[in-house]
């Protein structure tokens, strides 16, 4: 009996996506960059997918660049702009490390993980080329005030582009309207029921490519298209948008039951971040006195899949930079767990977690 509660890491492939992909994994194997009939068939699939993605993201088809991942989209958005890069302290490493590479500026967040607009203001000047603030955070789910960020940047650094990493946000919020003012928007297929190995970047500004060669995606992203992946991503996007409202309602209720249940059952448990200001699938809790590493092993033993912190390259847990940026003390940051729900989560998953997590915490506290 397993409960998969790590949807923020990845999600199961939606049946619509799978069905859409099969032909492009089998008989329709063409390379869209070719000239003949086989190539044209693949090209058509990519362009139809592009139309769908554009509609779901509220942009023009020629503003959609297909990439290999959310990380690649983030890297392209930041490294593809000249000038100084600025980002919030809770960005994914795909943004943070790209910003650091060019010697950029990192802006503090408050205790709920929301970007400090005054601090952001202070970091803006005529040298800034890109400002990156994620639409929703992957660790604790906080939704950022992107509209306010866009306003601020237009006033204080008009030459700068605004990038938002919408990778975690897409399943849960209307990215089309919330990210309307942004110049660059990243998404990643496997976070919303699409396949791994494909993402997209909305590009409404000047950008230099990372990958050069064949000149695909209007020179912005060379490399043979992952046709099946792109087709799968489009199908998953469409299915996600169509059911998003209902999913947010249903899963939000499951998440509330889970979070409230844990807070009630585990003495001293603390919820991270403000429930009202986070995406519907995120449940992040701290259990002072235990270690996340040990907790995750016990949960895994019991069939509950969850995560914590950021797994470094070796797979060991480092304390989450997001929690640290929010002012959570280091030992508490190392005593936390992220349970992230998704479109396939059921009441049974929540029941299993509510039974397993308190037991595991109690076991660790008394050992």
């Amino acid at each position, binding site marked *: 009996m397993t409960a998969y509660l790590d949807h923020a890491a990845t999600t199961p492939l939606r049946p619509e996506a799978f069905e859409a992909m099969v032909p492009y994994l089998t008989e329709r194997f063409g390379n869209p960059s070719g000239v003949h009939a086989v190539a044209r068939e693949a090209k058509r699939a990519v362009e139809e997918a592009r139309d769908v993605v554009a509609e779901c993201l509220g942009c023009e088809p020629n503003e959609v660049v297909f990439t290999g991942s959310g990380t690649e989209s983030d890297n392209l958005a930041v490294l593809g702009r000249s000038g100084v890069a600025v980002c919030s302290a809770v960005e994914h490493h795909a943004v943070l490390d790209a910003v650091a590479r060019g010697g950029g500026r990192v802006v503090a967040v408050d205790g709920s993980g929301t970007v400090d607009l005054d601090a952001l203001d202070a970091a803006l000047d005529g040298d800034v080329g890109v400002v990156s603030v994620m639409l929703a955070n992957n660790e604790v789910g906080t939704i950022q005030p992107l509209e306010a960020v866009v306003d601020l940047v237009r006033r204080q650094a008009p030459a700068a582009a605004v990038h938002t990493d919408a990778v975690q946000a897409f399943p849960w919020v209307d990215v089309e309207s919330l990210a309307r003012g942004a110049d660059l928007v990243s998404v990643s297929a496997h976070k919303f029921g699409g396949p791994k190995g494909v993402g997209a970047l909305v590009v409404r500004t000047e950008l230099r490519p990372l990958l050069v060669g064949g000149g695909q995606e209007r020179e912005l992203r060379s490399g043979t298209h992952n046709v099946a992946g792109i087709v799968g991503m489009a199908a998953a996007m469409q299915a996600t948008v169509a059911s998003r409202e209902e999913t947010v309602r249903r899963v939000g209720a499951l998440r509330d039951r889970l979070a409230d249940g844990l807070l009630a059952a585990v003495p001293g448990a603390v919820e991270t971040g403000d429930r009202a200001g986070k995406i519907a699938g995120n449940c992040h809790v701290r259990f002072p006195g235990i270690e996340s*590493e*040990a907790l995750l092993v*016990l949960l895994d033993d019991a069939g509950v899949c969850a995560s914590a912190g950021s797994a*470094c*390259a*070796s*797979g060991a847990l480092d304390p989450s930079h997001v929690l640290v940026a929010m002012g959570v003390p280091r030992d508490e940051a190392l005593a936390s767990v992220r349970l992230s729900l998704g479109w396939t989560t059921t009441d049974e998953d929540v029941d299993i977690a509510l039974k397993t997590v308190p037991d595991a915490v109690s076991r660790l506290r008394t*050992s």
Partner: protein
Amino acid sequence: MRVLVAMSGGVDSSVAAALLVEEGHDVVGATMKLWGGASDTGCCSVSDVEDARRVAQQLDIRHHVFNFGDDFTRHVVGPYAAAWSEGRTPNPCIECNRHVKFDRFLRRAAQLGFDAVATGHHARVTAERDGRHALRRGVDRAKDQSYVLAMLTQRELAKVRFPVGEMTKPDVRAKAEALGLRTAAKPDSQDVCFITSDGGREAFLGERIALRPGRVVDGSTGAEVGRVDAVQLVTIGQRRGLGGGAAGRRYATAVDVAGGVVTVGPEHDLLTDEVRLSDQTWADAPLASGTEVVAQVSAHGKGASAIYQGDGIIRFVDRQRKVAPGQTVALYDGDRVVGSGIAR
């Protein structure tokens, strides 16, 4: 039995895990991430973790990675720098065993419900009378690692297994090859895991303590015969880097860090009757004064016959070279470790 095997990514721990699986135990592997800084190889680099993980996959056992970097910094790296700054010669691998591998790791294993832990060390634990345990040398004397395990007491020995201690190193490699383990031909890690061959100890310590130059003085005449760049880095018994060329072999016989003076003299000046120990541990009962022991003062050194005097004093039967303060002395009765201490 549920066993947690510490897998470094090397061939010894790989085979240790394999042997336990063959014996039918419920085995899980774990790699400790201890050092995040520059490292040549062997222990804890990402590729070593990958090797361990791959071996675990091949053995069809689960594998975890534990971040004990804080403990490692606090109990191993910090004291290492502090010891050198005071002119002592620490053995960080021993402190890692004492505080991390056979303390923190043991506690984590207990928390997770394991009955025992195992490592790839070349040593043996045997069951003795009355439920006691003995730590003994590994059968491959050239690879015996009982010296770095000499601090273990009954509390740890009851919970530890060393599966490859009954094998020679060539047999271990042969076993790994026979099993098709990825690490069969991987070279053994040498040296301290957090010191790179690039800069060595000097570069590492230079970043952490203020290395000061010193004078080299002849022990008998008092004349200054040379200089050293870093007096803290000179070890008793050292010959190199002290300004050679004088008649006869010249060894560091004393190091005065505060005064900035290294005293040198012939080998004869290094010889001593005894070594005094602090931080003593006993594998079982403390030794009575007057007990005969064999004292080993380095990882692969030959032991020297001695009599335990009590109060941490070891009197050698034949004069031995002085043991540098900070070095571990392991005490044996035959092939059995009876205790350990750190030279003052």
